[in-house]
């Protein structure tokens, strides 16, 4: 096969049409040309490409690019969230921790009304989650269509367990996210043995996580996040096209290091609270 095929000129003159057997004729959408082949496409191409940057999102490569970028944003969030929580290690009965959580509400306060910036960040996060989920969902649908019949026997050589379970670990992380929000943001009393007090972040965290069953949920959830990051934090470089022989040996190292730091500390919080290392001064 050569790249400079004369045949392309003949094939590309046929306009896009629905063939009589109902198959979509058009495979090369931009010029409205159709390859002269019998195989039915798995994906209908949009007749009218959307304006930039939505046209990027219409393609699978663009969706992966968007998924990687939103993943970078979410990674920034989990990292900042972990760093903020490190304040619970300061043995001052949670004063720094409470100040930090209060400061999130008053961020940029005299410039913007109170909690406005917090809400901007929250809406941004919700958008990142939505876009990350939507791109994953629509690509999964495409991938299922592209492989209608599975092999009877399959021996994976390179694909890691983490890579093959991305959608499950992702769903687990999202599901547990709601438990986390209900517990420490919305203050559902049942989750905290009716001890939740609005505004006392350290108290709420310690009383919640000293319940072994809830601590176990947090640990499992962070293991799922670790599995997700293990593949995602490497994969994003490929999707974004960041590939340089000088940097490539660092890409997997970055992913493993990032996963270990974020999830390692995240898991240490419930464990150290359960062990009584991080605790409130009894009043």
């Amino acid at each position, binding site marked *: 096969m050569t*790249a400079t*095929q004369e045949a392309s000129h003949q094939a590309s003159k046929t306009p896009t049409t629905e063939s009589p057997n109902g198959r979509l004729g058009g495979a*090369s959408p931009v010029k409205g040309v159709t390859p002269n082949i019998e195989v039915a496409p798995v994906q209908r191409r949009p007749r009218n490409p959307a304006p930039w940057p939505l046209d990027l999102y219409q393609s699978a490569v663009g969706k992966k690019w968007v998924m990687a970028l939103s993943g970078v944003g979410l990674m920034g969030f989990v990292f900042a969230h972990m760093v903020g929580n490190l304040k619970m290690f300061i043995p001052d009965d949670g004063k720094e921790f409470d100040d930090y959580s209060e400061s999130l509400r008053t961020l940029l306060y005299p410039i913007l009304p109170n909690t406005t910036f917090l809400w901007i960040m929250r809406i941004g996060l919700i958008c990142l989650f939505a876009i990350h989920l939507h791109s994953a969902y629509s690509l999964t649908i495409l991938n299922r269509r*592209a492989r209608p019949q599975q092999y009877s026997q399959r021996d994976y050589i390179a694909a890691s367990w983490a890579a093959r379970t991305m959608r499950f670990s992702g769903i687990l992380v999202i599901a547990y996210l709601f438990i986390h929000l209900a517990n420490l943001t919305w203050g559902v009393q049942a989750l905290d043995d009716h001890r939740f007090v609005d505004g006392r972040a350290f108290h709420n965290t310690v009383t919640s996580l000293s319940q072994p069953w809830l601590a176990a949920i947090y640990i499992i959830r962070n293991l799922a996040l670790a599995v997700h990051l293990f593949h995602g934090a490497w994969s994003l470089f490929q999707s*974004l096209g960041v590939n340089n022989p000088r940097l490539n040996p660092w890409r997997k190292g970055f992913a493993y290091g990032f996963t270990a730091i974020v999830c390692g500390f995240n898991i240490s919080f419930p464990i150290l609270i359960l062990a009584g290392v991080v605790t409130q001064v009894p009043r």
Partner: protein
Amino acid sequence: MNVTVRVWRQEDAGSAGRFETHQLDDISADMSFLEMLDVLNERLIEAGREPVAFDSDCREGICGTCGLMINGQAHGPAEATATCQLHMRKFSEGDTITIEPWRAAAFPIMRDLIVDRSPLDAVIEAGGFISADTGGAPDANLIPVPKTVSDAAMDAAACIGCGACVAACPNSAGQLFTSAKLAHLNLVPQGQAQRWERTIDMVETMEAFFGSCTNYGECEKACPKGISIDFIAYMNRDFVKAKMKNRKLIGQKFP
């Protein structure tokens, strides 16, 4: 050696397929995998039965015609080896060998182990042409190409279009094939004039037929030519750049 072969039989694209099991005695360990199938077919014909249809041509690993899913691995257990270059010595006495055709929506089964791989041709066709001077033969080395660049382009051009990357990918993605066919033109100076148009056309043609990349890396391991998934990253980068570029300005060399 004696092996048991579980081979996929299917009349045509429309009919349902099934596995057929054959006991093969006295197979030489020095036979290639396809020679083993030839022996199977000879014995089937002698017994008055329909031989197993499979594709092959050069049988020296350079044409990309053969390609079978052997024991769940594209082109079988040997690394960087096409099915025709795989030898029976890679298997052990008494093994059961499962042979399936490539499975992908883009590769409908025509008969038994033969699939229609024309979407790969469609992707190449979408790549169009490169601008080459006509007239008198130009001086050799008129266009300087750094050695690293020509080596990288050559690595991409090693693609024989067998479709193992698509077969090995759990998503039936055609990214490794497309990125290799794209890179061997996009990396060298001669391919620059049509670079952005070619990238868009090839990627969008690919996406009409194949799944999307999830960076498993299975394709790279299945590739009989050992083509690296680095090319997929280059393609992703070129595609996004192509969507951004003001093409009116790409002729400008001066910054």
